[in-house]
Protein backbone atom coordinates (compact mmCIF):
# COMPACT_ATOMS: atom_id res chain seq x y z
CA UNK A 1 0.00 0.00 0.00
CA UNK A 2 2.78 2.44 0.83
CA UNK A 3 4.41 1.69 -2.49
CA UNK A 4 1.11 2.29 -4.23
CA UNK A 5 0.68 5.53 -2.28
CA UNK A 6 4.07 6.72 -3.45
CA UNK A 7 3.42 5.87 -7.09
CA UNK A 8 -0.01 7.47 -7.09
CA UNK A 9 1.50 10.59 -5.54
CA UNK A 10 4.23 10.73 -8.19
CA UNK A 11 1.70 10.38 -10.97
CA UNK A 12 -0.64 12.92 -9.38
CA UNK A 13 2.14 15.49 -9.58
CA UNK A 14 3.26 14.43 -13.04
CA UNK A 15 -0.31 14.81 -14.28
CA UNK A 16 -0.69 18.26 -12.70
CA UNK A 17 2.58 19.47 -14.22
CA UNK A 18 1.81 17.98 -17.64
CA UNK A 19 -1.66 19.53 -17.66
CA UNK A 20 -0.22 22.93 -16.69
CA UNK A 21 2.34 22.73 -19.51
CA UNK A 22 -0.39 21.57 -21.83
CA UNK A 23 -2.64 24.51 -20.93
CA UNK A 24 0.22 26.97 -21.45
CA UNK A 25 0.98 25.42 -24.83
CA UNK A 26 -2.67 25.42 -25.89
CA UNK A 27 -3.06 29.11 -25.11
CA UNK A 28 0.36 30.58 -25.83
CA UNK A 29 2.41 28.22 -28.01
CA UNK A 30 -0.16 26.89 -30.47
CA UNK A 31 -0.88 29.39 -33.26
CA UNK A 32 -4.28 30.90 -33.92
CA UNK A 33 -6.05 28.78 -36.49
CA UNK A 34 -6.87 30.56 -39.77
CA UNK A 35 -10.59 29.97 -40.18
CA UNK A 36 -11.76 29.05 -36.70
CA UNK A 37 -9.67 31.47 -34.69
CA UNK A 38 -9.23 30.87 -30.96
CA UNK A 39 -12.15 28.48 -30.80
CA UNK A 40 -9.96 25.88 -32.45
CA UNK A 41 -7.95 25.61 -29.23
CA UNK A 42 -10.71 23.44 -27.76
CA UNK A 43 -9.59 20.90 -30.30
CA UNK A 44 -6.51 19.96 -28.23
CA UNK A 45 -8.64 19.04 -25.24
CA UNK A 46 -11.28 17.41 -27.36
CA UNK A 47 -8.94 15.20 -29.37
CA UNK A 48 -6.70 14.55 -26.39
CA UNK A 49 -9.53 13.31 -24.20
CA UNK A 50 -11.12 11.37 -27.08
CA UNK A 51 -7.87 9.62 -27.82
CA UNK A 52 -7.12 8.76 -24.20
CA UNK A 53 -10.77 7.78 -23.67
CA UNK A 54 -10.57 5.27 -26.53
CA UNK A 55 -7.28 3.87 -25.24
CA UNK A 56 -8.75 3.64 -21.73
CA UNK A 57 -11.74 1.66 -22.93
CA UNK A 58 -9.34 -0.53 -24.90
CA UNK A 59 -7.45 -1.21 -21.68
CA UNK A 60 -10.75 -2.09 -20.02
CA UNK A 61 -11.27 -4.62 -22.82
CA UNK A 62 -7.82 -6.13 -22.25
CA UNK A 63 -8.51 -6.36 -18.51
CA UNK A 64 -11.82 -8.09 -19.30
CA UNK A 65 -10.15 -10.64 -21.57
CA UNK A 66 -7.40 -11.21 -19.03
CA UNK A 67 -9.95 -11.69 -16.27
CA UNK A 68 -11.81 -14.35 -18.24
CA UNK A 69 -8.52 -16.04 -19.03
CA UNK A 70 -7.27 -15.89 -15.44
CA UNK A 71 -9.77 -14.55 -12.86
CA UNK A 72 -7.69 -12.32 -10.60
CA UNK A 73 -9.41 -9.48 -8.68
CA UNK A 74 -6.68 -7.11 -9.90
CA UNK A 75 -7.91 -7.33 -13.50
CA UNK A 76 -11.46 -6.67 -12.38
CA UNK A 77 -10.52 -3.57 -10.38
CA UNK A 78 -8.31 -2.22 -13.18
CA UNK A 79 -11.07 -2.91 -15.73
CA UNK A 80 -13.71 -1.19 -13.65
CA UNK A 81 -11.44 1.78 -12.94
CA UNK A 82 -10.63 2.06 -16.65
CA UNK A 83 -14.31 2.12 -17.58
CA UNK A 84 -15.00 4.76 -14.94
CA UNK A 85 -12.17 6.94 -16.20
CA UNK A 86 -13.06 6.19 -19.82
CA UNK A 87 -16.61 7.43 -19.21
CA UNK A 88 -15.20 10.64 -17.72
CA UNK A 89 -12.95 11.17 -20.76
CA UNK A 90 -15.76 10.41 -23.19
CA UNK A 91 -17.97 12.88 -21.33
CA UNK A 92 -15.21 15.49 -21.57
CA UNK A 93 -14.90 14.78 -25.28
CA UNK A 94 -18.63 15.22 -25.79
CA UNK A 95 -18.79 18.46 -23.78
CA UNK A 96 -15.69 19.96 -25.40
CA UNK A 97 -16.91 18.89 -28.84
CA UNK A 98 -20.28 20.44 -28.19
CA UNK A 99 -18.69 23.74 -27.17
CA UNK A 100 -16.58 23.62 -30.34
CA UNK A 101 -19.56 22.65 -32.47
CA UNK A 102 -21.54 25.73 -31.48
CA UNK A 103 -19.27 28.19 -33.38
CA UNK A 104 -18.07 25.66 -35.98
CA UNK A 105 -21.38 24.09 -37.03
CA UNK A 106 -23.66 26.72 -35.49
CA UNK A 107 -25.28 24.09 -33.28
CA UNK A 108 -24.49 22.44 -29.97
CA UNK A 109 -25.46 19.08 -31.25
CA UNK A 110 -26.23 17.29 -34.46
CA UNK A 111 -26.96 13.61 -35.03
CA UNK A 112 -24.06 12.90 -37.33
CA UNK A 113 -22.85 9.27 -37.32
CA UNK A 114 -19.75 10.05 -35.27
CA UNK A 115 -21.68 11.99 -32.64
CA UNK A 116 -24.38 9.34 -32.59
CA UNK A 117 -21.81 6.63 -32.10
CA UNK A 118 -20.07 8.38 -29.24
CA UNK A 119 -23.43 8.87 -27.54
CA UNK A 120 -24.09 5.17 -27.96
CA UNK A 121 -20.65 4.44 -26.55
CA UNK A 122 -21.32 6.65 -23.57
CA UNK A 123 -24.66 4.95 -22.89
CA UNK A 124 -23.15 1.48 -23.25
CA UNK A 125 -20.42 2.17 -20.73
CA UNK A 126 -22.74 3.89 -18.27
CA UNK A 127 -24.98 0.80 -18.47
CA UNK A 128 -21.89 -1.17 -17.41
CA UNK A 129 -22.32 0.27 -13.92
CA UNK A 130 -26.01 -0.73 -13.90
CA UNK A 131 -24.93 -4.30 -14.57
CA UNK A 132 -22.25 -4.22 -11.89
CA UNK A 133 -24.66 -2.72 -9.40
CA UNK A 134 -27.20 -5.48 -9.96
CA UNK A 135 -24.90 -8.44 -9.25
CA UNK A 136 -24.19 -9.26 -5.63
CA UNK A 137 -21.78 -12.14 -5.93
CA UNK A 138 -18.32 -10.67 -6.40
CA UNK A 139 -16.95 -13.25 -8.78
CA UNK A 140 -20.07 -13.31 -10.88
CA UNK A 141 -20.02 -9.51 -11.01
CA UNK A 142 -16.44 -9.52 -12.22
CA UNK A 143 -17.16 -12.22 -14.79
CA UNK A 144 -20.26 -10.50 -16.16
CA UNK A 145 -18.46 -7.17 -16.26
CA UNK A 146 -15.66 -8.77 -18.26
CA UNK A 147 -18.09 -10.31 -20.75
CA UNK A 148 -20.05 -7.09 -21.03
CA UNK A 149 -16.96 -5.00 -21.64
CA UNK A 150 -16.03 -7.26 -24.56
CA UNK A 151 -19.47 -6.84 -26.12
CA UNK A 152 -19.34 -3.11 -25.38
CA UNK A 153 -16.03 -2.67 -27.15
CA UNK A 154 -17.78 -3.68 -30.34
CA UNK A 155 -19.58 -0.35 -30.15
CA UNK A 156 -16.20 1.38 -29.92
CA UNK A 157 -15.11 -0.41 -33.08
CA UNK A 158 -18.36 0.58 -34.77
CA UNK A 159 -17.76 4.17 -33.67
CA UNK A 160 -14.38 4.15 -35.34
CA UNK A 161 -15.64 2.49 -38.50
CA UNK A 162 -18.86 4.45 -38.92
CA UNK A 163 -17.12 7.72 -39.75
CA UNK A 164 -15.24 6.03 -42.54
CA UNK A 165 -18.29 4.36 -44.07
CA UNK A 166 -21.10 6.83 -43.55
CA UNK A 167 -20.91 10.41 -44.69
CA UNK A 168 -20.21 12.78 -41.85
CA UNK A 169 -19.79 16.40 -40.94
CA UNK A 170 -17.19 15.52 -38.31
CA UNK A 171 -13.56 16.08 -39.38
CA UNK A 172 -11.17 13.14 -39.51
CA UNK A 173 -8.03 13.74 -37.47
CA UNK A 174 -6.35 10.38 -37.34
CA UNK A 175 -6.78 8.75 -40.70
CA UNK A 176 -6.94 8.91 -44.43
CA UNK A 177 -4.82 11.49 -46.20
CA UNK A 178 -7.64 12.06 -48.68
CA UNK A 179 -10.18 12.86 -46.00
CA UNK A 180 -7.61 14.99 -44.20
CA UNK A 181 -7.01 17.03 -47.31
CA UNK A 182 -10.75 17.39 -47.92
CA UNK A 183 -11.30 18.56 -44.38
CA UNK A 184 -8.29 20.87 -44.68
CA UNK A 185 -9.80 22.38 -47.79
CA UNK A 186 -12.94 23.14 -45.82
CA UNK A 187 -10.81 24.94 -43.26
CA UNK A 188 -11.56 22.40 -40.55
CA UNK A 189 -7.95 21.40 -40.19
CA UNK A 190 -4.80 23.24 -41.07
CA UNK A 191 -1.98 20.77 -40.99
CA UNK A 192 0.66 22.37 -43.17
CA UNK A 193 3.63 24.71 -42.80
CA UNK A 194 5.32 25.84 -39.56
CA UNK A 195 2.00 26.34 -37.83
CA UNK A 196 1.11 22.73 -38.23
CA UNK A 197 4.25 21.51 -36.43
CA UNK A 198 3.35 23.64 -33.42
CA UNK A 199 -0.22 22.37 -33.57
CA UNK A 200 0.86 18.75 -33.82
CA UNK A 201 3.29 19.23 -30.95
CA UNK A 202 0.60 20.80 -28.77
CA UNK A 203 -1.76 17.96 -29.62
CA UNK A 204 0.89 15.39 -28.72
CA UNK A 205 1.54 17.10 -25.40
CA UNK A 206 -2.23 17.06 -24.78
CA UNK A 207 -2.35 13.33 -25.40
CA UNK A 208 0.63 12.74 -23.11
CA UNK A 209 -0.86 14.94 -20.37
CA UNK A 210 -4.21 13.17 -20.51
CA UNK A 211 -2.47 9.80 -20.52
CA UNK A 212 -0.59 10.76 -17.35
CA UNK A 213 -3.88 11.93 -15.86
CA UNK A 214 -5.35 8.53 -16.71
CA UNK A 215 -2.50 6.67 -14.99
CA UNK A 216 -2.82 8.92 -11.94
CA UNK A 217 -6.57 8.38 -11.74
CA UNK A 218 -6.13 4.66 -12.27
CA UNK A 219 -3.67 4.36 -9.39
CA UNK A 220 -5.88 6.47 -7.14
CA UNK A 221 -8.91 4.41 -8.04
CA UNK A 222 -7.04 1.20 -7.37
CA UNK A 223 -5.95 2.52 -4.00
CA UNK A 224 -9.50 3.61 -3.26
CA UNK A 225 -10.82 0.14 -4.10
CA UNK A 226 -8.30 -1.49 -1.76
CA UNK A 227 -9.43 0.91 0.97
CA UNK A 228 -13.09 0.12 0.23
CA UNK A 229 -12.37 -3.58 0.49
CA UNK A 230 -10.59 -3.07 3.78
CA UNK A 231 -13.37 -0.86 5.12
CA UNK A 232 -15.94 -3.51 4.19
CA UNK A 233 -13.90 -6.14 5.96
CA UNK A 234 -13.65 -4.02 9.07
CA UNK A 235 -17.37 -3.23 8.98
CA UNK A 236 -18.14 -6.91 8.83
CA UNK A 237 -15.93 -7.52 11.83
CA UNK A 238 -17.53 -4.73 13.83
CA UNK A 239 -20.97 -6.02 12.93
CA UNK A 240 -19.96 -9.47 14.07
CA UNK A 241 -18.72 -8.10 17.34
CA UNK A 242 -21.84 -5.93 17.91
CA UNK A 243 -24.02 -8.97 17.56
CA UNK A 244 -22.36 -10.28 20.67
CA UNK A 245 -21.17 -13.44 19.07
CA UNK A 246 -19.13 -15.98 20.91
CA UNK A 247 -15.76 -14.59 19.96
CA UNK A 248 -13.25 -14.83 22.74
CA UNK A 249 -11.25 -11.77 23.71
CA UNK A 250 -8.18 -13.34 22.18
CA UNK A 251 -9.94 -13.80 18.85
CA UNK A 252 -11.13 -10.20 18.89
CA UNK A 253 -7.63 -8.97 19.67
CA UNK A 254 -6.29 -11.01 16.80
CA UNK A 255 -8.87 -9.58 14.40
CA UNK A 256 -8.12 -6.00 15.31
CA UNK A 257 -7.13 -4.12 12.14
CA UNK A 258 -3.45 -3.65 11.55
CA UNK A 259 -2.49 -0.09 12.38
CA UNK A 260 0.66 -0.03 10.31
CA UNK A 261 0.90 -0.29 6.58
Amino acid at each position, binding site marked *: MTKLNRWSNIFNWLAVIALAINLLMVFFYAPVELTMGNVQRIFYFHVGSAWVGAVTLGIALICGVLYLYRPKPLYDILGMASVEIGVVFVTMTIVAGSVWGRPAWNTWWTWSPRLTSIT*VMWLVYVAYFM*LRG*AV*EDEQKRARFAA*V*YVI*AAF*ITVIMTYVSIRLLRDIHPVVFGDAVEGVQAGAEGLQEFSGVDSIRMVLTLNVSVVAFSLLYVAWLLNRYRLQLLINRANMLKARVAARMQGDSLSVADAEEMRPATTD
Partner: protein
Amino acid sequence: MNRSGLFWTQLRALVWKDLQIERHTKQSIGIMLMFAIVAVVTFNFALENNLGAVREVAGGLLWVTILLAGTLGLNRSFASELENRPIDAMLIAPMDRSTMFMGKVISVSLFTLAMELILIPVFIAISNKPFYRPEVLLLITLGTIGYVAAGVLVSSMAVQTRANYVLVPVLLLPLSLPVVLAAATGVAQYMGLNKPPFADVSATFALVIAYDLLMLAAGLFTYNYVVEE
Protein backbone atom coordinates in the same frame (compact mmCIF):
# COMPACT_ATOMS: atom_id res chain seq x y z
CA MET B 1 -19.45 -38.49 -34.14
CA ASN B 2 -16.95 -35.76 -34.89
CA ARG B 3 -17.00 -32.40 -33.18
CA SER B 4 -18.73 -30.36 -35.84
CA GLY B 5 -21.31 -33.10 -36.42
CA LEU B 6 -22.06 -33.08 -32.71
CA PHE B 7 -22.39 -29.30 -32.77
CA TRP B 8 -25.03 -29.41 -35.47
CA THR B 9 -26.96 -32.27 -33.84
CA GLN B 10 -27.03 -30.47 -30.51
CA LEU B 11 -27.91 -27.18 -32.15
CA ARG B 12 -30.82 -28.79 -33.97
CA ALA B 13 -32.04 -30.37 -30.74
CA LEU B 14 -31.87 -27.04 -28.89
CA VAL B 15 -33.73 -25.10 -31.57
CA TRP B 16 -36.26 -27.93 -31.87
CA LYS B 17 -36.82 -27.79 -28.09
CA ASP B 18 -37.58 -24.04 -28.24
CA LEU B 19 -39.85 -24.49 -31.24
CA GLN B 20 -41.72 -27.28 -29.41
CA ILE B 21 -42.18 -25.08 -26.34
CA GLU B 22 -43.47 -22.30 -28.58
CA ARG B 23 -45.81 -24.71 -30.40
CA HIS B 24 -47.36 -25.76 -27.11
CA THR B 25 -47.45 -22.46 -25.23
CA LYS B 26 -47.78 -20.09 -28.21
CA GLN B 27 -46.45 -17.29 -26.04
CA SER B 28 -43.37 -15.67 -27.55
CA ILE B 29 -44.70 -14.87 -31.00
CA GLY B 30 -48.20 -14.14 -29.71
CA ILE B 31 -47.04 -11.67 -27.07
CA MET B 32 -44.56 -9.99 -29.40
CA LEU B 33 -47.15 -9.64 -32.14
CA MET B 34 -49.82 -8.30 -29.80
CA PHE B 35 -47.34 -5.80 -28.39
CA ALA B 36 -46.20 -4.78 -31.87
CA ILE B 37 -49.75 -4.10 -33.02
CA VAL B 38 -50.56 -2.15 -29.86
CA ALA B 39 -47.39 -0.14 -30.41
CA VAL B 40 -48.31 0.62 -34.03
CA VAL B 41 -51.78 1.78 -33.00
CA THR B 42 -50.25 3.88 -30.21
CA PHE B 43 -47.83 5.47 -32.65
CA ASN B 44 -50.75 6.44 -34.83
CA PHE B 45 -52.50 8.21 -31.99
CA ALA B 46 -49.25 9.72 -30.75
CA LEU B 47 -48.76 11.16 -34.23
CA GLU B 48 -52.34 12.45 -34.11
CA ASN B 49 -53.61 10.07 -36.78
CA ASN B 50 -51.50 12.01 -39.24
CA LEU B 51 -50.86 9.50 -42.04
CA GLY B 52 -48.31 11.79 -43.64
CA ALA B 53 -46.24 11.87 -40.46
CA VAL B 54 -46.47 8.09 -40.10
CA ARG B 55 -45.30 7.70 -43.70
CA GLU B 56 -42.33 10.00 -43.09
CA VAL B 57 -40.97 7.96 -40.23
CA ALA B 58 -42.32 4.51 -41.10
CA GLY B 59 -38.87 2.89 -41.21
CA GLY B 60 -37.98 4.27 -37.79
CA LEU B 61 -41.31 3.21 -36.28
CA LEU B 62 -40.81 -0.29 -37.64
CA TRP B 63 -37.41 -0.52 -35.96
CA VAL B 64 -38.63 0.84 -32.64
CA THR B 65 -41.45 -1.68 -32.70
CA ILE B 66 -39.08 -4.55 -33.51
CA LEU B 67 -36.68 -3.52 -30.74
CA LEU B 68 -39.31 -3.26 -28.04
CA ALA B 69 -41.12 -6.41 -29.13
CA GLY B 70 -37.75 -8.13 -29.33
CA THR B 71 -36.99 -7.49 -25.66
CA LEU B 72 -40.36 -9.06 -24.81
CA GLY B 73 -39.50 -12.11 -26.90
CA LEU B 74 -36.15 -12.43 -25.17
CA ASN B 75 -37.75 -12.10 -21.74
CA ARG B 76 -40.34 -14.71 -22.59
CA SER B 77 -37.75 -17.10 -23.92
CA PHE B 78 -35.56 -16.84 -20.83
CA ALA B 79 -38.53 -16.99 -18.49
CA SER B 80 -39.49 -20.34 -20.01
CA GLU B 81 -35.93 -21.55 -19.39
CA LEU B 82 -36.25 -20.68 -15.73
CA GLU B 83 -39.87 -21.79 -15.10
CA ASN B 84 -39.45 -25.53 -15.44
CA ARG B 85 -35.66 -25.29 -15.52
CA PRO B 86 -34.88 -27.06 -18.79
CA ILE B 87 -31.69 -25.05 -18.50
CA ASP B 88 -30.50 -27.37 -15.71
CA ALA B 89 -30.74 -30.35 -18.05
CA MET B 90 -28.84 -28.39 -20.69
CA LEU B 91 -26.11 -27.50 -18.22
CA ILE B 92 -25.68 -31.14 -17.21
CA ALA B 93 -25.56 -32.30 -20.83
CA PRO B 94 -22.08 -32.67 -22.32
CA MET B 95 -22.49 -29.66 -24.54
CA ASP B 96 -20.47 -26.59 -25.34
CA ARG B 97 -21.95 -23.40 -23.93
CA SER B 98 -21.40 -21.79 -27.32
CA THR B 99 -23.88 -24.30 -28.78
CA MET B 100 -26.44 -23.13 -26.22
CA PHE B 101 -25.79 -19.53 -27.27
CA MET B 102 -26.25 -20.30 -30.96
CA GLY B 103 -29.38 -22.32 -30.27
CA LYS B 104 -30.95 -19.47 -28.34
CA VAL B 105 -29.96 -16.90 -30.99
CA ILE B 106 -31.49 -19.03 -33.74
CA SER B 107 -34.76 -19.76 -31.93
CA VAL B 108 -35.34 -16.19 -30.70
CA SER B 109 -34.40 -14.86 -34.17
CA LEU B 110 -36.93 -17.23 -35.72
CA PHE B 111 -39.66 -16.01 -33.33
CA THR B 112 -38.81 -12.37 -33.97
CA LEU B 113 -38.70 -12.91 -37.74
CA ALA B 114 -42.06 -14.71 -37.57
CA MET B 115 -43.48 -11.67 -35.76
CA GLU B 116 -41.95 -9.37 -38.40
CA LEU B 117 -43.54 -11.48 -41.12
CA ILE B 118 -46.93 -10.21 -39.95
CA LEU B 119 -45.76 -6.81 -38.75
CA ILE B 120 -44.22 -5.75 -42.08
CA PRO B 121 -47.44 -6.16 -44.13
CA VAL B 122 -49.21 -4.08 -41.47
CA PHE B 123 -46.59 -1.37 -41.93
CA ILE B 124 -46.92 -1.56 -45.72
CA ALA B 125 -50.68 -1.15 -45.36
CA ILE B 126 -50.38 1.84 -43.03
CA SER B 127 -47.51 3.71 -44.65
CA ASN B 128 -47.66 2.54 -48.27
CA LYS B 129 -43.87 2.29 -48.31
CA PRO B 130 -41.91 -0.42 -50.16
CA PHE B 131 -40.88 -2.56 -47.19
CA TYR B 132 -41.32 -5.60 -49.46
CA ARG B 133 -38.13 -4.88 -51.39
CA PRO B 134 -35.76 -7.85 -50.99
CA GLU B 135 -32.90 -5.60 -49.85
CA VAL B 136 -35.08 -4.13 -47.11
CA LEU B 137 -36.15 -7.58 -45.96
CA LEU B 138 -32.50 -8.67 -45.96
CA LEU B 139 -31.47 -5.64 -43.89
CA ILE B 140 -34.27 -6.26 -41.40
CA THR B 141 -33.32 -9.94 -41.14
CA LEU B 142 -29.62 -9.19 -40.66
CA GLY B 143 -30.39 -6.42 -38.18
CA THR B 144 -32.70 -8.73 -36.23
CA ILE B 145 -30.01 -11.41 -35.98
CA GLY B 146 -27.43 -8.94 -34.65
CA TYR B 147 -29.95 -7.52 -32.21
CA VAL B 148 -30.95 -10.95 -30.95
CA ALA B 149 -27.30 -12.05 -30.65
CA ALA B 150 -26.58 -9.09 -28.37
CA GLY B 151 -29.92 -9.70 -26.65
CA VAL B 152 -29.23 -13.34 -25.80
CA LEU B 153 -25.84 -12.46 -24.34
CA VAL B 154 -27.25 -9.61 -22.25
CA SER B 155 -30.44 -11.40 -21.17
CA SER B 156 -28.48 -14.43 -20.01
CA MET B 157 -26.59 -12.16 -17.66
CA ALA B 158 -29.56 -9.99 -16.68
CA VAL B 159 -31.74 -12.91 -15.53
CA GLN B 160 -29.00 -13.90 -13.08
CA THR B 161 -28.92 -10.48 -11.42
CA ARG B 162 -30.97 -8.78 -8.75
CA ALA B 163 -32.56 -6.43 -11.26
CA ASN B 164 -33.60 -9.37 -13.46
CA TYR B 165 -35.53 -8.58 -16.66
CA VAL B 166 -35.61 -4.85 -15.91
CA LEU B 167 -31.94 -4.72 -16.83
CA VAL B 168 -32.45 -6.15 -20.33
CA PRO B 169 -33.63 -3.01 -22.17
CA VAL B 170 -31.18 -0.81 -20.24
CA LEU B 171 -28.24 -2.92 -21.37
CA LEU B 172 -29.52 -4.12 -24.70
CA LEU B 173 -30.81 -0.96 -26.35
CA PRO B 174 -27.51 0.97 -26.18
CA LEU B 175 -25.51 -2.14 -27.04
CA SER B 176 -27.57 -2.81 -30.15
CA LEU B 177 -27.86 0.80 -31.30
CA PRO B 178 -24.94 0.62 -33.79
CA VAL B 179 -26.62 -2.18 -35.72
CA VAL B 180 -30.06 -0.59 -35.52
CA LEU B 181 -28.63 2.74 -36.61
CA ALA B 182 -26.98 1.23 -39.66
CA ALA B 183 -29.93 -0.98 -40.55
CA ALA B 184 -32.46 1.83 -40.09
CA THR B 185 -30.32 4.16 -42.23
CA GLY B 186 -30.24 1.48 -44.90
CA VAL B 187 -34.00 0.87 -44.75
CA ALA B 188 -34.65 4.62 -44.97
CA GLN B 189 -32.55 4.80 -48.14
CA TYR B 190 -34.83 2.22 -49.77
CA MET B 191 -38.06 4.01 -48.84
CA GLY B 192 -37.97 6.33 -51.86
CA LEU B 193 -39.79 5.72 -55.14
CA ASN B 194 -36.64 4.53 -56.89
CA LYS B 195 -34.20 1.98 -55.63
CA PRO B 196 -30.85 3.56 -54.78
CA PRO B 197 -27.77 2.02 -56.45
CA PHE B 198 -26.19 -0.64 -54.25
CA ALA B 199 -22.96 1.36 -53.95
CA ASP B 200 -24.89 3.98 -51.93
CA VAL B 201 -26.15 1.50 -49.35
CA SER B 202 -23.28 -0.99 -49.33
CA ALA B 203 -21.76 0.76 -46.31
CA THR B 204 -24.84 0.14 -44.18
CA PHE B 205 -24.89 -3.52 -45.22
CA ALA B 206 -21.22 -3.81 -44.32
CA LEU B 207 -21.81 -2.22 -40.89
CA VAL B 208 -24.77 -4.49 -40.12
CA ILE B 209 -22.91 -7.63 -41.20
CA ALA B 210 -19.80 -6.59 -39.27
CA TYR B 211 -21.88 -6.05 -36.13
CA ASP B 212 -23.61 -9.43 -36.57
CA LEU B 213 -20.31 -11.26 -36.93
CA LEU B 214 -18.65 -9.44 -34.03
CA MET B 215 -21.60 -9.98 -31.67
CA LEU B 216 -21.94 -13.65 -32.62
CA ALA B 217 -18.21 -14.13 -32.11
CA ALA B 218 -18.32 -12.33 -28.75
CA GLY B 219 -21.23 -14.53 -27.66
CA LEU B 220 -19.64 -17.76 -28.83
CA PHE B 221 -16.40 -17.04 -27.02
CA THR B 222 -17.79 -15.64 -23.78
CA TYR B 223 -21.04 -17.56 -23.23
CA ASN B 224 -19.00 -20.12 -21.35
CA TYR B 225 -18.49 -17.57 -18.59
CA VAL B 226 -22.07 -16.33 -18.57
CA VAL B 227 -23.80 -19.64 -17.78
CA GLU B 228 -21.09 -21.18 -15.66
CA GLU B 229 -23.28 -22.69 -12.98
